[in-house]
């Protein structure tokens, strides 16, 4: 299955680069330490480097915007550089968010969509049925849009029971919930890997590092760490596609997806909006309906 996707990607990429349709392809390759890592391919001879397996956790859409900007700097005036990106269904939804926010134009990206068989758990890939939790509950196996699709859409059975995690935290009494998050946030080392891995976190200067005004002090203490994570989660409200690249990137395995999933669930319940699902729907916090009744 993944072999088929990998071959499909290589054939596609070779053709794209040979025909000069794109100047760069963003895909995955094997790194020196046994993990997969993002790869930037400019020459069709290098297409063989590209791999795809169920440990490719990076959301490559995070590199699209900067890559286009870099290529544009060296390009002929008036020409618009175009890149191809290998993207899973969740990645494509985050690309949709970027297109909607005017960060990337649809014409400048060639989407090599992957019919996704689901990823392995980043924390424990050796585990029995090591499928990542968010993939086990995912019903979206084909991207919302693509220029080329590789792989066959797999038939998957989503478990009947509700997705665990958010409901368990919601069920805790307030004091226990606070204790739970205190304990989790305390483990954060403020490396900002979650932010770097996130395609929706593209601010030129992150508030967490801004010194004037100092929104978040550099102290390595729980209040600052909590502030950072709550701020990040809220900035992703209605924008997070749930790819969980943040959680896969986290060196201390914080349950960051709980925050994002909670907000995504609330956004869907309150505003009927799923991030990136439909390019024509305005983002929920950038619009309003005068007659809506919201619980305050």
């Amino acid at each position, binding site marked *: 299955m993944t072999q088929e996707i990998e071959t499909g990607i290589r054939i596609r990429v070779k053709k794209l680069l040979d025909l000069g349709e794109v100047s760069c392809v963003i895909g995955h390759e094997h790194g020196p330490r046994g993990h997969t890592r993002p790869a930037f391919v400019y020459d069709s001879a290098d297409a063989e480097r590209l791999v795809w397996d169920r440990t490719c956790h990076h959301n490559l859409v995070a590199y699209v915007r900067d890559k286009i900007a870099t290529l544009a700097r060296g390009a002929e005036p008036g020409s618009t550089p175009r890149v191809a990106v290998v993207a899973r269904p969740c990645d494509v939804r985050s690309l949709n968010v970027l297109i909607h926010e005017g960060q990337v134009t649809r014409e400048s990206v060639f989407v090599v969509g992957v019919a996704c068989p689901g990823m392995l758990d980043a924390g424990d890939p050796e585990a029995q049925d090591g499928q990542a939790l968010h993939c086990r509950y995912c019903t979206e196996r084909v991207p919302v849009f693509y220029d080329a699709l590789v792989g066959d859409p797999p038939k998957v059975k989503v478990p009947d029971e509700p997705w665990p995690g958010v409901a368990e935290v919601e069920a805790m009494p307030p004091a226990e919930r606070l*204790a*739970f*998050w205190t304990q989790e946030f305390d483990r954060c080392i403020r490396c900002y890997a979650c932010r770097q891995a996130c395609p929706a976190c593209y601010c030129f200067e992150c508030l967490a590092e801004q010194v004037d005004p100092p929104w978040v002090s550099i102290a390595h203490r729980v209040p600052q760490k909590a502030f950072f994570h709550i701020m990040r989660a*809220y900035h992703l409200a209605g924008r997070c596609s749930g790819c969980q690249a943040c959680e896969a990137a986290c060196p201390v395995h914080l349950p960051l997806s709980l925050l994002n999933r909670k907000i995504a669930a609330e956004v869907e319940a309150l505003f009927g909006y799923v991030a990136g699902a439909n390019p024509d729907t305005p983002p929920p916090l950038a619009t309003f309906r005068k007659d809506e009744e919201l619980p305050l």
Partner: protein
Amino acid sequence: MHETFEPKIVGFLCNWCSYAGADMAGTSRVAYPPNVRIIRVPCSGRVDPLYVLKAFQEGADGVLIAGCHPGDCHYGDGNYHARRRYALMHRFLDFVGIETGRLCIDWVSAAEGARFAQVVAQLTENVRALGPWTGWNDAC
């Protein structure tokens, strides 16, 4: 301990309605709890959710956001945006451990001095019942 606890509440009031409403409460000699520290903002839509977070992080026990009634915004639609933002934030703060009762968003017009007093009294009461917000400070 709670007998002597006086909640600190940060109030973000919109310049055009709620701030004038608070003024009205004062000029009409309506008594309301002195626990609220008022910050005047141009519009309830100006209140960045980070202001709320920052207030809690810096030791506020409760936060009040008050603006013009929906439809009456001086700028047309600022409070509609605020409404969406805080409907979401309310639920999210609860999820990360800041009780819902500590954050209040309400609409107070310039003529509603008594209503302003009532909103502040209610929030102060709620926060008093919840106790001081120690945030994540206990652990560090």
